[in-house]
């Protein structure tokens, strides 16, 4: 299937013996000038880039207090070393979070601390963990900062809370600034900024796609469920990853949202100019890009005159939305303050379930036993509902409301300890397939244990990247590519639409006439 060996799954994750340099050759395609320039970055490696790297690093240290603290506070305790899925899957010591951080930290020490300058001048910077910046170091950065999915699992175990994701983001921003950007992310960002979504789907294509989905749902259920686009005056604006329009199993989730909105009776619409929840600005560490993309959502909300904003199933989008949307594109004083701003689709569906406004035939999902993959940016970068841990509890509550058979994966692989799917953080690209397959090993081990011990048949996720990544990597580990499902696909299959053939409830007539 590929020119690398797929790791063998163990009964549980085993900390591997170090094998130096196993992934030294792994690097994504570098962005050509045509993908760099639209984002305001130089087309190729600039002259005197060494100096510019340090200037940019200084700039970021000044802007982001966390970045500065993370560079200074590591005591090399080693707690993070066996927590990264890429280290566990590749055995490469540079994929230990502390080693990844040190790639950048050693340059910071060399040029920005007294000890580094002093011993550097004596020609022995290594004495204080410092190192000269040269092309070899830059190449190492490009390789290993693109072997971090910014999942933040290591930060959970770090006694100082050092967040490697912040360091990876800074490193990528610094590299792009001197002309070494990543093709996959930058190409996508340019499309989202000009067309409105990562795929580059223009409005006519969106309309055509949505019309097809309306036909499909009506054929299946006999109920005319609408998928509105650019409709003014609706209550809710749905912002969802464009993969929901395009790919499987994502699209089955979108059909689930539409059915829930339909049953709720609350008017909703999507926007063609803000037809993307994903915000790849976070992956490349660019605040400016994050802001530009977020402002599209604000403009769409104002133009369409909506009262609420709801996000579809997208992991890092939810982190950006939940944690940063207010500072990026607020204030949201024109929205209805009685609802969370923004709200997650799982919160919305869960509220409807708690208010007993949805009817389900749970047996529609009886042919499966399900388990839930917590997506990193949801689990470790956000929350849902009004209680701690809501981002873990609410998706599970929805699944359990629509399915009879549910089993969790082992405790140290879910919730805030969840393992990344292996494709997050801007790494979901074909040129990193070896990394993606190997990085999925810990998650696959946890999944396999529930398959073997509890008869689990399918994996459920609420992130477009996770869904695409699993579709690709499950077969490498002997599972089916269609074993991964959208959470709202389960909702979609179990929901009983008012007036449909399955709707046998007594009050269905009265509901219809309302």
């Amino acid at each position, binding site marked *: 299937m590929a020119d690398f060996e797929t790791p063998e799954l163990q009964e549980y994750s085993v900390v591997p013996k170090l094998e130096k340099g196993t992934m030294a050759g792994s690097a994504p395609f570098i962005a050509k000038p045509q993908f760099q320039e639209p984002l305001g970055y130089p087309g190729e490696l600039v002259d005197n880039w060494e100096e510019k790297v340090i200037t940019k690093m200084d700039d970021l240290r000044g802007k982001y207090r966390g970045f500065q603290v993370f560079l200074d506070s590591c005591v090399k305790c080693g707690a993070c070393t066996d927590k990264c899925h890429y280290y566990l899957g590749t055995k490469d010591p540079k994929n230990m979070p502390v080693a990844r951080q040190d790639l950048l930290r050693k340059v910071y020490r060399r040029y920005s601390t007294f000890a580094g300058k002093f011993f550097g001048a004596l020609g022995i910077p290594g004495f204080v963990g410092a190192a000269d910046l040269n092309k070899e170091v830059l190449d190492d950065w490009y390789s290993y900062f693109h072997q971090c999915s910014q999942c933040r699992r290591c930060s959970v175990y770090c006694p100082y809370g050092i967040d490697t994701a912040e360091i990876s983001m800074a490193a990528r921003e610094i590299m792009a600034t001197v002309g070494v950007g990543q093709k996959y992310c930058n190409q996508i960002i340019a*499309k989202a900024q000009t067309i409105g979504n990562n795929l580059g789907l*223009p409005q*006519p294509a969106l309309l055509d796609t949505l019309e097809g989905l309306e036909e499909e749902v009506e054929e299946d259920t006999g109920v005319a469920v609408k998928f509105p686009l650019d409709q003014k005056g609706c209550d809710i604006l749905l912002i969802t*990853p*464009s993969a929901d329009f*395009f790919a499987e199993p994502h699209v089955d989730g979108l059909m689930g949202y539409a059915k829930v909105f339909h049953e709720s009776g609350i008017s909703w619409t999507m926007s063609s100019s803000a037809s993307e929840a*994903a915000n790849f600005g976070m992956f490349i560490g660019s605040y400016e890009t994050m802001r530009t993309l977020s402002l599209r959502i604000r403009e769409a909300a104002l133009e369409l005159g909506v009262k609420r904003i709801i996000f579809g199933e997208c992991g890092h989008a939810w982190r950006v939305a939940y944690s940063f949307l207010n500072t990026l594109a607020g204030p949201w004083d024109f929205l209805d303050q009685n609802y969370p701003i923004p709200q997650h689709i799982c919160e919305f569906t869960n509220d409807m379930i708690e208010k007993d406004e949805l009817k389900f035939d749970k047996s529609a999902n009886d042919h499966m036993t399900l388990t839930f993959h917590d997506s990193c940016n949801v689990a470790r970068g956000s929350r849902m509902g009004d209680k701690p841990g809501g981002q873990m509890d609410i998706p599970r509550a929805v699944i359990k409301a629509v399915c009879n058979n549910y089993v969790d994966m082992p405790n140290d692989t879910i919730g805030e300890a969840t393992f990344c799917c292996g494709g997050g953080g801007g790494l*979901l690209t074909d040129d990193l397939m070896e990394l993606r397959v190997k990085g999925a090993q810990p998650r696959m081990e946890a999944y396999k244990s529930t398959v073997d011990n509890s008869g689990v048949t399918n994996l459920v996720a609420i992130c477009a990247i996770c869904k695409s990544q699993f579709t690709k990597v499950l077969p490498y580990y002997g599972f089916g590519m269609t074993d991964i499902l959208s959470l709202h696909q389960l909702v979609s299959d179990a929901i009983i639409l008012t007036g449909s053939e399955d709707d046998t409830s007594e009050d269905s007539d009265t509901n219809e006439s309302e």
Partner: protein
Amino acid sequence: MAAIEVDGKSFEVDEEGYLEDLTTWVPEIAGVMAKLDDAELTDAHWEVINFLREYYEEYQIAPAVRVLTKAIGKKLGKDKGNSKYLYELFPYGPGKQACKYAGLPKPTGCV
């Protein structure tokens, strides 16, 4: 810059083998690209490629998977209107591999 040879003419492709200048596409390119993947194009492949071309001409983008499966189902029968059939034809993924042969841009994003 990489390139592929088709009937004595050279066409530039990117790192992943996608045509650089989409306007230069000719049907023979698909056959040459398939050969590079050790594949042989049959009429069944061409049904998909032709649909992709038509759709692209109208919408300037590749069709979503459901749009594609539906269209193929209508043309070739319901048993073929699904991703399983398309993956049999294009094992690297109908979205990406078929788009490459058809001279469409690579679908990008979380797909």
